[in-house]
């Protein structure tokens, strides 16, 4: 199996699983209890919080463990918005955000009368800072812009966005799910007020995420029912998950310097060989800064799902911008926002590399992909005759 879908999920580091195991069995107490069994849990949670805060460049009290990236996003957006209702009901985000952000904004719009502006992106997938500046109003309660896009890997200028937003005295949330473990993330330096993180995207467990909330940033909890997590998120703590995500973050952050440069070389090799060997291919987001592991390509005249199944048949696992895999008919809204036409967006593939990929694997992908594309192009009514063989 050649796994090239690390932006979807990753395998857990063995060290992560090992660190988690005792907290399912012998160290099982409820952290809120008073006896020693519970204290072990509390200590593990607090040292994990300490570790996470240190790596992310923030204070432990600003770290909230959640059930995942989606909950972190929901909590940041709704929790910030509801705490500022007197100021206004207007939120700015972008067209290329993850559904967790978009659907949460839609929820506020539909049920609580919020107004949402969705910033556009240029053809490379980056938002326009002037459009952002012009969109800010006195009743803006939140700006939410992702750090790295899950489909293209394109990085947004978060620091510059942070400065603009801060000047306007508006709180700033960033979904940094796809950046963690791929590029260094120091939340203080980024200038965000909230950030959302998901454990399973960097070799941690599923069912655990992190919400960063800068001390003093407007906030009211979404999940209620106890004083857990410094009164910011109720519910008995997921101790194994918390220990797991802290361990994963520690290893993944270290690996940004060790392993990521290798992964980037492989990604670049994959990109170059595809461009050299398959005609009429576009690298989506290729001219913007990107996280080192992601390659999104549009292969003209063919459809993504068909390519994915033929790759799967050869043991290669990737994902596509085509609608067909998601069940809706519309192709990737991210690629459409970048100006791709529908047919080209349908013919896009995402390869997201990870720690276990080798050059041999990457070479095999190209060796397999080229004839697959040819086979499908031969069948395609759009394909010009000179490309058919």
């Amino acid at each position, binding site marked *: 199996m050649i796994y090239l879908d690390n932006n979807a999920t990753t395998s857990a580091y063995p060290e992560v699983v090992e660190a988690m195991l005792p907290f399912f069995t012998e160290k099982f107490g409820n952290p809120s209890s008073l006896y020693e069994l519970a204290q072990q849990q509390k200590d593990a949670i607090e040292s994990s919080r300490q570790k996470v805060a240190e790596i992310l460049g923030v204070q432990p009290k600003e770290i909230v463990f959640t059930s995942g990236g989606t909950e972190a996003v929901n909590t940041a957006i709704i929790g910030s918005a509801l705490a500022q209702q007197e100021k206004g009901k207007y939120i700015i985000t972008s067209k290329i955000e993850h559904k967790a952000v978009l659907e949460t904004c839609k929820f506020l719009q539909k049920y609580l009368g919020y107004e949402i502006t969705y910033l556009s992106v240029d053809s490379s997938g980056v938002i326009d800072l002037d459009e952002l500046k012009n969109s800010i109003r006195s009743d803006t309660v939140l700006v939410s812009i992702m750090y790295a896009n899950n489909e293209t890997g394109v990085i947004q200028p978060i620091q510059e966005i942070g400065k603009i937003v801060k000047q306007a005295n508006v709180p700033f949330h960033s979904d940094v799910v796809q950046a963690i473990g791929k590029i260094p993330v120091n939340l203080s330096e980024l200038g965000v007020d909230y950030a959302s993180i998901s454990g399973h995207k960097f070799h941690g467990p599923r069912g655990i995420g992190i919400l960063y909330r800068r001390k003093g940033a407007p906030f009211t909890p979404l999940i209620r029912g106890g004083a857990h997590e410094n009164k910011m998120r109720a519910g008995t703590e997921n101790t194994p998950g918390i220990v797991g995500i802290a361990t994963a973050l520690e290893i993944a952050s270290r690996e940004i310097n060790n392993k990521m440069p290798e992964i980037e070389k492989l990604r670049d090799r994959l990109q170059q060989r595809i461009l050299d060997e398959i005609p009429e291919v576009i690298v989506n987001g290729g001219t913007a800064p990107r996280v080192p592991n992601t390659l999104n390509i549009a292969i003209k005249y063919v459809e993504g799902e068909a390519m994915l199944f033929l790759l799967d048949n050869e043991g290669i696992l990737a994902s596509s911008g085509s*609608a067909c895999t998601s069940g809706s008919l519309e192709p990737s809204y991210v690629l459409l926002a970048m100006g791709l036409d529908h047919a080209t967006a349908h013919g896009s593939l995402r390869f997201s590399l990870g720690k276990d990929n080798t050059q041999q694997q990457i070479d095999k992908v190209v060796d397999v992909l080229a004839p697959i594309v040819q086979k499908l192009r031969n*069948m395609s009514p759009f394909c010009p005759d000179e490309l058919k063989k």
Partner: protein
Amino acid sequence: MNENEPKKPGGIYSKKVMEHFMNPHNWGRMENPDGVGKVGNPICGDVMWIYIKVEDNRIVDISFETFGCVAAIATSSITTDMVKGKTVEEALEITNKAVANALDGLPPNKMHCSLLAEEGLKAAIEDYIAKKKGKKQDNQKQEK
């Protein structure tokens, strides 16, 4: 689709769908077809072109060109199998349900692909009939 059947290879698709997708029959552009049906919409990601050759009211040859997903290619392929050798009237009776059944079923969100095949076939036959009429009229004009 039988729920208990092993789903692999192909995940959501039947074995039959995957067979036709992996090795489609009768694909490619046809030289001098008697009828062409062009259906679908790139916005939805499926475009199907069906070519037919008709002799003595019988579809003696058929081929397709399809831009689309696994289901779109598989339905194109099986439709050409079902149609080859049939009279024009027989071919017009082929429904999208028959196409889906011949593939041992399609996932619900892919049923539109079988509809596309039915429409593509009908469009090709309509094109053939229209061309025939046109020829007849041309001939009549020439005779006059």
